């Protein structure tokens, strides 16, 4: 192990332990639990609301008793084509009697939402609907047409379709693109949550003056890189913890479900994955390279934030910096997301080359493009930029903060004093 790397590890070890061995870290680690909890509660509430609303909806046909059976029959057949949210609300019937029923009165009935009411002869029905051009009204029209067509054609033998699923390897481009977008989003979210902390990580050393010990004992490059590696360690621990929680949770859930259900789910799941297709480079490579790109994104953004934060003179300045930093990250996310939706375009190429969006954009590329060698190139390119950013940060830090003795403010004061001293000196040299 070279002294340089050993120094990095000494600094990283200190930082890692200082962060992890505190009660606050537990809060940090468990914070997503609150998010998930809130999300679940909110989601459940919303879905219950939606379910209730859906259950209470209906469409109504006011028909002659002779037509009702035909309508019900047609409704059953048509309904097969609509699934999920597309399904029309349940159909209800009213028998048209001598007394005329007012459709508007039906819609006003309590107990359920009535989306559309059809009345009159099937050839020229009158449809009253809640939403202009709503689905329900058109469905009722379709239903009337179907009944008339059935009558004109007479009985037809029911169609007996045989369904076959498309199982070849030709993965859907749209799926791969959304996979790429998913990779971008996950990496972005993790760096947003975790990399922003680096901005304040040098503040501690500046506050308690340890920076001079560090600067005297090891090259500043090792200090900066060590801090980055320490924070990366925290981030990886965070991710590993939640991955373990997720897989553990999955296992526990699995043991509580009966085997038949697992079997069925397994078969369905396998079918789903084959249908959902693979990333162009294959799952293991995609996940591995995605992790590496996360590391790179973390190091790149972290290095920038560390360098910027090192220049800040006070905690307040660091707090002010968090907004531009978040905006910078969101900007990189938007750029990469736009690039992911247009693979092969100039924009995509730009996002892949531009160092700070490169990890995100290249992760998306791994989903749609099966070339693997290019990723080695990209990782090398990003590593060069990490080194460059650290190098520049260290130069700025040395020139600005360390040489100033007591930071920027001292320097400004010194300059005023120096100007005064210089004028005295100039005067005295004139006098000689």
């Amino acid at each position: 192990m070279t002294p340089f790397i050993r120094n990095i590890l000494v600094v990283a070890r200190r930082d890692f332990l200082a962060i992890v061995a505190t009660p606050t870290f537990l809060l940090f680690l468990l914070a997503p639990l609150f998010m998930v909890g809130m999300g679940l509660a909110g989601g459940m509430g919303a879905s219950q609301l939606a379910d209730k609303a859906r259950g209470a909806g209906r469409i109504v046909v006011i028909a002659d008793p002779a037509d009702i059976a035909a309508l019900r029959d047609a409704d059953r057949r048509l309904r097969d084509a609509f699934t999920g949210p597309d399904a029309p609300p349940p159909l209800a019937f009213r028998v048209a009697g001598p007394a005329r029923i007012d459709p508007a009165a039906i819609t006003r009935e309590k107990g359920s939402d009535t989306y559309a009411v059809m009345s009159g002869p099937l050839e020229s029905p009158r449809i009253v609907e809640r939403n202009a051009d709503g689905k329900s009204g058109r469905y009722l029209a379709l239903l009337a047409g179907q009944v008339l067509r059935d009558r004109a054609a007479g009985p037809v033998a029911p169609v007996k379709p045989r369904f076959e699923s498309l199982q070849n390897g030709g993965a859907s481009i749209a799926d791969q693109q959304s996979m790429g977008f998913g990779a971008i989003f996950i990496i972005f979210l993790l760096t947003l949550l975790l990399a922003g902390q680096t901005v304040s990580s040098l503040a501690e050393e500046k506050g308690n003056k340890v920076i001079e010990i560090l600067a005297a004992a090891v090259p500043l490059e090792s200090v900066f890189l060590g801090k980055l590696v320490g924070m990366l360690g925290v981030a990886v621990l965070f991710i590993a913890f939640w991955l373990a929680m997720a897989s553990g949770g999955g296992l526990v859930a699995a043991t509580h479900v009966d085997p038949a259900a697992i079997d069925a789910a397994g078969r369905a799941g396998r079918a789903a994955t084959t249908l959902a297709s693979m990333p162009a480079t294959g799952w293991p490579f995609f996940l591995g390279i995605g992790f590496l790109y996360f590391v790179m994104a973390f190091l790149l953004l972290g290095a920038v934030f560390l360098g910027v934060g090192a220049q800040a003179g006070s905690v307040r300045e660091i707090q002010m910096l968090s907004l531009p930093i978040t905006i910078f990250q969101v900007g990189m996310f938007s750029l990469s997301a736009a690039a992911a939706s247009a693979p092969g375009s100039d924009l995509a190429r730009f996002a892949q080359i531009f160092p700070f969006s490169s990890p995100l954009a290249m992760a998306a590329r791994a989903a749609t493009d099966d070339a693997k060698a290019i990723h080695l190139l990209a990782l090398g390119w990003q590593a060069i930029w990490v080194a460059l950013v650290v190098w520049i940060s260290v130069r700025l830090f040395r020139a600005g903060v360390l040489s100033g003795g007591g930071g920027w403010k001292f320097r400004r004061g010194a300059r005023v004093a120096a100007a005064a001293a210089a004028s005295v000196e100039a005067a005295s040299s004139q006098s000689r």
Partner: protein
Amino acid sequence: MSDYSVEATGLTKYFGDYRAVDHVSLAVPAGSIYGVLGPNGAGKTTSLRMTLGIIDPDEGTSRLLGGLRPQSVRARIGYLPEERGLYPGMKAREAIAFMGALRGLDWREGRRRAATFMTELGLERVIDTKIRKMSKGMAQMIQLIGSIVHTPDLIVLDEPFSGLDPVNQERLEMLVRRERDRGATILFSTHVMAHAERLCDRIAIIARSQGRFEGTVDEARALLPMQVRYTPRDQADPAAIAANLPAGAELRGAAWHFTIGDGDVEPLLARITASGHGVTGLSISRPALHDAFVHIVRQVDAGFVADEARDAVEEASA
């Protein structure tokens, strides 16, 4: 290996236009204890920082431990900065081991030595106490141990005595001597003359950004004439006694105070013996380092004041 552990020549640093350090040179012989003395704000700390390569000098060079660049011998140097700093959340033993690890010492060895050092210095009570729970002086001792735990060849201490109680100052002096006996070179700055006088083999005095003196403590004291205090047995005729003494002799109480040059000791004794006024008390001594230091700094300040006065006259007449 050269005879000097520190060879810094012409170190100059500007803060803006202000010349904080102006062509300061330090040559510290290997195996010696060397003091850098100077009033507050003279540029001691900046000089030491440049010597160690923590900040880059605007002019001049620094070579350590036989002509090597400071950055290349970090592991062989121990440094106690003027602004003390430790991670408050760390335990004392860990903090010392951490500082050792930064200089390339094995963690386990660092922890072991930390315990040894702390026990030796009467700090065994707080080996596993966090820094934030310690007094300032204790934390300073911890940091001091941390800066020598890796048995460095060159130890640089910036104002090591400030903030320590007399007992700990004593311990620190002991520690410095022991490190020197081990073969290390010690360079430290201070503005407390007593420590420098007791410890240093050589000293440098920095005032107003420039080096003003370099030499042994005795050489510094020799800058001033010897001080004599003489009490005659026969006090009857002060004028007659004064006639025997050099001009400027001053009578305070029963004793006469005056200064003489190095060559005048024997003639003075002869004159006093011959005068017949008798002797009840006589002391001839070198002035303390304190006086020499104040003398040098005053001279420098007087030069500046004279310049400024001349400037003022100049400006008024212009």
